[in-house]
C-alpha cells in the first residue's frame, strides 16, 4: 500500500466573498506554498467589493452583526488544528477566538455606551449615535499572524464597516485560512477582503484610494512608509489609526479605540411641541 497523496491547498486572495488569484498572475513562496502576490489592481477591486458590501452590512441590525461575528468565532474554534498546523501556537489561536467573541458582543452595545441623549437648552429632542465610517483599509500586523489579524479586523467590522486587509507578508497563510473561516460564517461577501503580498505595493494604493474612508496603519513598521501613507490618506481626509509600537502586547485588553476611531457620530435634532 502506498501512502495516500495529500490534496494540497491553493492559497488565494479573498475578494467579494470569492477566492480569486491575483489578476497579475503573480505569486510568492511561503512555507512551501505559492501565495498570491496582490497587485494595485487587486487592491482597487477589493475596494469596489468592500464598498458594495457597505449598504447591507452597515444596514444590518446590530444583533445580526453580533450573531454573525459570534458564528465566525465558532468556525475559528473548529479550525483550531488547521492554524496549529500552519505553525500558529495553540495559545494564540485560543486568544484569537476569545478576542473575536469579545468584539462580537460589542455589536449591540456600542451605540448605548458611545451615544445617547444630549440635554440641550431648548425644546428639542437631541440624540447622538455612532455609525460606521464606511470602507476601512487595514495593514495587519506582521505578527502575531492570527491574533494580530483578528484584533484589527473584528473591531472594524463589528460596527458595520467593511475592510480591505493587507495581510502579514511574511506569514500570510493564517490570513487565507481565516478567510475560509469568514466565508463559512454567514458574513456577506465583501465585508472582509484579504490581500496577500507586499505592503509596499498594496498599502499606497489603498491609502490614496478616494473611495476608502479610513486607514489603519497598525502593521506598518517602517516609519517613513507610515508617514507617506498618512500623507496620501490626507487627500480625502481618511480617518487614520497610526502604527502600533513594535513592542505592542496583543494579548492585553484592547480597549475601544480601534472601534471608536472608525466610527462617525451622528447627532439628530427635532423640535418638541404639540
Amino acid at each position, binding site marked *: 500500500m502506498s501512502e495516500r497523496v495529500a490534496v494540497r491547498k491553493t492559497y488565494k486572495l479573498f475578494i467579494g466573498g470569492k477566492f480569486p488569484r491575483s489578476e497579475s498572475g503573480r505569486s510568492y513562496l511561503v512555507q512551501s506554498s505559492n501565495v498570491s502576490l496582490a497587485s494595485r489592481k487587486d487592491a482597487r477591486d477589493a475596494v469596489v467589493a468592500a464598498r458594495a458590501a457597505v449598504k447591507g452590512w452597515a444596514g444590518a441590525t446590530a444583533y445580526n452583526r453580533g450573531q454573525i461575528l459570534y458564528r465566525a468565532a465558532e468556525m475559528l474554534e473548529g479550525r483550531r488544528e488547521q492554524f496549529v498546523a500552519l505553525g500558529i501556537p495553540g495559545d494564540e489561536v485560543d486568544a484569537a477566538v476569545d478576542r473575536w467573541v469579545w468584539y462580537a458582543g460589542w455589536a449591540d452595545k456600542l451605540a448605548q455606551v458611545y451615544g445617547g441623549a444630549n440635554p440641550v437648552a431648548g425644546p428639542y429632542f437631541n440624540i*447622538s449615535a455612532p455609525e460606521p465610517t464606511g470602507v476601512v483599509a487595514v495593514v495587519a500586523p506582521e505578527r502575531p499572524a492570527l491574533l494580530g489579524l483578528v484584533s484589527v479586523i473584528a473591531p472594524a467590522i463589528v460596527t458595520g464597516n467593511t475592510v480591505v486587509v493587507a495581510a502579514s507578508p511574511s506569514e500570510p497563510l493564517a490570513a487565507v485560512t481565516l478567510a475560509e473561516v469568514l466565508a463559512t460564517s454567514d458574513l456577506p461577501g465583501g465585508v472582509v477582503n484579504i490581500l496577500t503580498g507586499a505592503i509596499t505595493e498594496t498599502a499606497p494604493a489603498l491609502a490614496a484610494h478616494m473611495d476608502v474612508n479610513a486607514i489603519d496603519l497598525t502593521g506598518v513598521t517602517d516609519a517613513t512608509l507610515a508617514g*507617506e501613507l*498618512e500623507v496620501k490618506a*490626507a487627500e*480625502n481626509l481618511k480617518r487614520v489609526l497610526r502604527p502600533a509600537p513594535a513592542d505592542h502586547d496583543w494579548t492585553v485588553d484592547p480597549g475601544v479605540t480601534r472601534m471608536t476611531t472608525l466610527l462617525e457620530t451622528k447627532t439628530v435634532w*427635532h423640535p418638541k411641541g404639540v
Partner: protein
Amino acid sequence: MFEYAPAPESRSVVDLKPSYGLFIDGKFVDPTDGGSFKSINPASEEVLAEIAEAGAQDVERAVSAARKAYDKVWGPMPGRDRAKYLYRIARLIQERSRELAVLESLDNGKPIRESRDVDLPLVAAHFFYYAGWADKLGHAGFGSNPQPIGVAAQVIPWNFPLLMLAWKIAPALAAGNTVVLKPAETTPLTALLFAEICQQADLPAGVVNIVTGAGDTGRALVEHPGVDKVAFTGSTEVGRAIARSVAGTRKKLTLELGGKAANIVFDDAPIDQAVEGIVNGIFFNQGHVCCAGSRLLVQENVADRVLESLKRRMAHLRVGDPLDKNTDVGAINSAAQLERIRELSDAGSAEGAERWSPPCELPDRGFWFAPTIFTGVTQAHRIAREEIFGPVLSVLTFRTPAEAVEKANNTPYGLSAGIWTDKGSRILWMADRLRAGVVWANTFNKFDPTSPFGGYKESGYGREGGRHGLEGYLNV
C-alpha cells in the same frame, strides 16, 4: 414693506485700543520682528485696530509658555480648580457679553441680533458646560483616569470668532491641556478681549496664549514640534494641508471643515415653517456657516409653492448695518470672501442656473452681497458642488425619498443636513441614510454645548461639544 427707524446698538460699550500685541505667558507683548496688520470693520472698511503679526519666534515663545504652564501649573492642578477658573471665565463672559457682542459685530460684520442672541450666549454656555467636566473626566467614558495630551495648537475661522474660540479652548482646558490659539486675521479682536478676560480671571500665565496673524502664523504653529495636539476649523483645502503636515508625527488631529448641506423639503412639510428654516439655513450669519443649508432639495410637486413663499420671505430680509438691531443680514466678512462669492455666483449664471435676489439697497461702503437664490441648478453645477460660504442658495428638486438621499449624499462633504416633513418615520428613515454629522429635522442651524458637532467624509473628523468633544483633548 414697512419703513423701519434705525435702531443702532451703541458702540460706546467697546473700548478699542489703537493697537494690540500678542498674548503670551499671561502678558500682552510686542512681536519679535515688529510686524503688524490692520483689522477693519467690513461694514464700513474703517480700520478698527493695528494687530501684531506673530512670526516663528513668537510662536516659539507661545508654545514654550504653554509647555511650561502645562508642566508646572495646569497639568498638575486638580480638576476641581481648573473647573473654577473655567466657571470664572464663563461668568466674566456673561458679565461682559454686550461689549463682546458689539465688538464681534464690528470686527466680523454679523448682525448684532445674532452676536447678542446666538454667539455670546453659546460662548458662555460652552465654558459653563466644560467647566463641569474638568473634575469628572473619569466618568466621561474614556477610562477611569484619562490624561490630557499636552500643548494644543488651535486655529480658528472668522465666521464665529468667539464661539469657535470657546469650542476650542473650553474642552482643551477642562481636560487639562494648555493652548496656543490663532484667531483668523480678519477677526482677531474678540480673541484679544478674551485674553483680557483670562487676566481678569487670574488664569495662570501660559495656560491660554493668543497669537495673531495669517496663514504663515498658523502654519508655524501647527508645524511646531512642541505641539501635541492640533485642532483646526476652516476650509477643507487648509484642513488637508494640515493633515499632511502632521502625517508621521505623534500629534493628535481634529478637523472641522467645509460643508455643502442639503436642506430637504418634502411635500407634506408645513411650508411656512420650512421657509423659515430655509432662510435661517442659508442667510443666518450671511451664509458664512460651514453647516449652512446651501443646497435646497425641494420635492418637485411643491417646488413652485415653496419658491414663491421663499421669495416673498426674502423680500423682507433687512440687509445693512450690523449694529442696527433690525438687521437680518450683515456685511460679508472681507473683500476676498466677497470676491469668492461673486465668482461662484457668476459661475452659476454662466452654467445656466437662474439667479434671483429681492430688490435690496446695499450700503456704498463695506462688503455686501444681496441674499440670492439660484433655480434650475443641476448636480454638476459648481454652485451645487462647491462651498460658497455666502448668502447664496442653490435650489434642486427631487421626486422620491431615495432620490433625495442620493442627491443629498452626492458631495465629498458631510457636515450637516436638514429634513422637513410631517411624517416621523420618514424623518428617521432619512436621518439613518444621510451621511452627515448633524441632522436637523424640522429645524436648522441649532447649536448647543451638550450636542456633538462635526463632519463625515471631507468635512473633517472629531467632534466638538458634548462628552464626545473631550475625546480630542484626552490621551485616548
